[in-house]
């Protein structure tokens, strides 16, 4: 029987897998991408689940995608378009039951005016806060596209990289060094308390600090996640967030088209059951249907646990098996997509407010956010969760029929395994209803405008997308799982104990988010080993 033979096979057509595939194909390799699902994109997809509505089913906003990758792979030419959103709204419930809105505006003066209504002091502090966060961004950004050094290695390359990191850090000077250490180890609450006084504003800023994590806003180590507000850029607009036109799937589609255009091949409905390893070297893989594909090298876009689960454990050192077992996923986020018969009203928000084109939040205080985490710790979904609500169709009309809209709701926290028992259909429905009820407290016509709902608990995310325990970052982004510890110490340079088996998913440095950096870094390491320049 004749087997197909490829120079490189990439497992998983998620955005990182596709980025790696593009780079390798462009460097002249014959590359095949295998995707288990019937559609490409992984968690970066746009799928229609109801009539003419298209949802960004999982990931829903774009900012972090590295511009250098988009340029290298000509993604704009292949149809990627990101539209920044122009607002944001924090709905405030006053003590007397009335509502108010803290609006975020594209225009700095408008933004400041609204802040000043709440607190003059905070209006000033907000500028300082953003400046200080931006400073931390400048420190971290260049590290995203670099391979982490192995601090135990004496290889010149690792030593040089360590020296580079040391120099950068040392170069900050004593005071900035302290600031940086504080930023990376403090809790979001403590950090914000040093700047702001208004609780509603704090919770508006802080909510994002717990996205996808098993930590609360009071947990040490959450302040740095505030970076995400500032780290991205869209077409050179630093710190902007935006919608991909056509949904997040448009990004995977552009990657896919770029890959195909350079001669690559993608196969869907092709799940890998195991890697074939001979004498410590990868030879290819067997698909779920039994088909065998030969390959000189394999790059896995799956998370680290799924990757090594596809390898015979006898081929791996015992300590690696142990580390992979202990790698923590613990999904904590859920996603709901809702088709709407028009724009819902929100208490305190004027009709037609541009603020609705951005993220809409209803968390009232830091304490409320932290209590949401306490619920998760106890294995319950949050009674008052952090909800990141967006109506992309207000900006991108291509996703819904005219006059209709869809809303993306990101929910923090939701347990992977509810303590009272596993996810049953009834429990899923109860969870969905709970979220809808919560939104309805702030939106009088929300339930009547609802046409359809797609619900994803962490368990559903695992089943559908293949992210272990539904962790949206392919593994928690805590200090012990970052940089040279990601995914496991000793194998943080996209390689594995198996020769020819590489990793390119978000389980690797620098982690999750639709960023593409792990994919690009992995491709660079592969090509380095092959002695080719990309």
């Amino acid at each position, binding site marked *: 029987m004749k087997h197909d033979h490829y120079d490189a096979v990439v497992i998983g057509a998620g955005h990182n897998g596709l980025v790696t595939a593009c780079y390798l194909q462009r460097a002249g390799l014959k590359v095949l991408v295998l995707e288990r699902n019937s559609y490409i994109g992984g968690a970066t997809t746009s799928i229609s689940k109801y009539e003419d509505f298209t949802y960004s089913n999982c990931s829903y906003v774009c900012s972090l995608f590295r511009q250098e990758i988009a340029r290298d792979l000509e993604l704009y030419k292949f149809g990627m378009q990101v539209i920044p959103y122009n607002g944001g709204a924090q709905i405030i419930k006053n003590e007397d039951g009335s509502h108010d809105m803290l609006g975020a505006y594209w225009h700095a003066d408008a933004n400041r005016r609204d802040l000043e209504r709440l607190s003059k002091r905070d209006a000033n502090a907000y500028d300082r806060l953003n400046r200080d966060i931006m400073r931390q961004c400048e420190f971290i950004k260049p590290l995203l596209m670099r391979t982490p050094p192995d601090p*135990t290695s004496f290889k010149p390359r690792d030593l040089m990289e360590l020296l580079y990191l040391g120099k950068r850090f040392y170069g900050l000077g004593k005071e900035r060094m*302290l600031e940086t250490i504080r930023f990376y180890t403090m809790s979001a609450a403590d950090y914000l308390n040093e700047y702001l006084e208004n609780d509603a504003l704090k919770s508006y800023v802080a909510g994002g600090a717990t996205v996808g994590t098993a930590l609360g806003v009071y947990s040490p180590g959450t302040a740095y996640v505030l970076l995400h507000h500032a780290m991205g850029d869209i077409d050179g607009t630093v710190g902007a967030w935006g919608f991909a036109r056509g949904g997040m799937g448009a990004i995977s589609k552009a990657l896919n088209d770029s890959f195909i255009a350079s001669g690559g091949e993608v196969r869907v409905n092709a799940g890998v059951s195991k890697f074939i390893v001979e004498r410590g070297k990868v030879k290819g893989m067997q698909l779920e249907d039994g088909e065998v594909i030969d390959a000189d090298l394999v790059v896995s876009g799956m998370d680290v646990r799924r990757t090594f689960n596809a390898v015979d454990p006898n081929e791996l050192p015992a300590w690696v098996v142990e580390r992979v077992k202990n790698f923590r996923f613990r999904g904590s986020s859920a996603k709901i997509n809702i088709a709407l018969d028009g724009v819902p009203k929100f208490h305190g928000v004027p009709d037609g407010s541009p603020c609705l084109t951005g993220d809409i939040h209803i968390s009232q205080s830091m304490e409320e956010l*932290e209590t949401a985490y306490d619920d998760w710790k*106890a294995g319950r979904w949050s009674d008052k969760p952090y909800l990141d609500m967006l109506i992309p169709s207000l900006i991108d009309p291509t996703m819904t029929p005219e006059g209709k809209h869809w809303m993306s709701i990101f929910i923090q926290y939701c347990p992977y395994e509810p303590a009272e028992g596993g996810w049953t259909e009834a429990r899923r429905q109860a969870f969905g209803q709970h979220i809808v009820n919560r939104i309805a407290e702030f939106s009088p016509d929300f339930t009547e405008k609802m046409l359809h709902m797609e619900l994803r608990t962490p368990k559903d995310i695992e089943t559908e997308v293949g992210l272990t325990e539904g962790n949206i970052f392919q593994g928690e982004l805590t*200090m*012990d799982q970052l940089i040279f510890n990601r995914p496991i110490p*000793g194998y943080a340079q996209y390689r594995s104990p198996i020769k020819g088996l590489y990793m390119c998913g978000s389980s690797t440095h620098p982690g999750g988010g639709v960023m593409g950096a792990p994919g690009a870094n992995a491709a660079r390491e592969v090509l380095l080993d092959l002695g080719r320049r990309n």
Partner: protein
Amino acid sequence: MAKHYQNIVIGGGHNGLVCAAYLARAGQSVLVVEAANEIGGAACTRELVPGAKVSSGAHLLHAMPADLISDLGLANHGLSFSAQSIKTVSLNADGPAIVFDGDTVKGEDVSAEDEAAYQRFNADMQRMAKALRPVFDKLAPEPSIETWAERLTLLGLGLRIRSLGRFHMRELLRIIGMNFYDLLDEYFENRQLKAAIAMDALLGAEWGARSMGSVLTYLYRLAGYQRSKGLGLALPAGGMGAVSQSIAAAAKAAGAEIRTSAKVKSILIENDKASGVELDDGEKIQAGRVISNADPKQTFLKLVNVDHLDTGFIRQIRNLRSRGRAAKLHLVLKAAPQFKGLQEADLGARMLIAPNMDDIELAFNPCKYGRYPEEPVFEITVPSASDGSLAANGQHVLSAIVQYVPYDDSAELDANRAAFLKTILQQLERYAPGIGKQISHAELLLPRDLENEFGITGGHWHHVELVFEAFLFNRPVPALARHSSPIEGLYMCGAGCHPGGNVMGIAGRNAANQVLKGGQ
């Protein structure tokens, strides 16, 4: 004519006394001024009611360096121990206890796997603590490579970590920023066992087991055990006050003077240089140098006039975290308490009430919002079981650390204290049925009370939370990490400095060395 001293130490806590003793031994004139009417700070023995004494702050000695004890000749100055290397017993209200003795753990419900895992865990942690220990024992390293000395210090640290071997070095770099909850999950099955170990990392800390940094505090504590060279968890004869008394005796023998009931109102500064202190009663004492054992917030926000400091520095000091979340419980008991599952001979052991890590977390949750826990967790000692001098007539004293307790400065403080005491006693009753009837006197010191009693901001043991942001060259802030301060002639020697809290005296010793190096 008022006397002029070379050094004034503010605060007669153990670090202040250690600093004074070292300075006096080097031939310097030193005056220690202590606000309370007795020296010792949080390492003191207090008579609760006639015939019953208790260590009212710290109640176990476990981190004092063996060489400091011998250097100062503390044994000759009256320090002895009524018990050393005492066992730790984790109590269970409904089942058998777990006993930790040295590097072994035993318990009916503890599996052979967990017993073996404990050996492994202990060996791994000891090894890492040993690599870090010199950092804790010495002056904080400078984050600088300007001079050869600095380069060598950093290189030495690097090499020590490297000498762990590749596997353990990686492991250290992985777990150092981890939380203890997850780390213990990697090693053990038994929930009560995990909770008991976790308590070592969490006592006195602001955070729960799931908070990052709890591995660091555990290694810090292990380094303490190591440097006390076999003393382990020790009960000083006569209570913790005996430690302070012996250091004070050593200091006096070397020529230091100590004044109690002398509360400092402010630090005198002339020509941008510390020149002495002014006491509450208006008395001014001149000195060449002032060394503050008070916490950084006290020192720089209360004792020093703000005009002498720049705003950036003040902001850093204000932002220091000193939210004490440990309360102290003292009970005088008419007879020996009976704890479930505890052998009578083990009454002198350290007892823990922490059923599992989730319960610790549940005790922690409410205090984040300024509320009291319903089921707090405890570290309990009955020092009178090994030291008859503490309680007369067959009585016993019980001393317990209770977590997690909010800093409460509300108008209802007294009512809250009474209500919380009731909660605590109910919880104790489950583990020691009948203890309620044995109580002849009960006292509960909340963080707020500890602040008043010991003059520590927030009632925090470590003065400043022991976390990465206030660690090594950042402890408490970069400008104070080497014990000197932005004000010439003003030094710091308390737990707020590197390496941190616990009764160990290293900060005091390092400060004395720095003062002497500075000359004058």
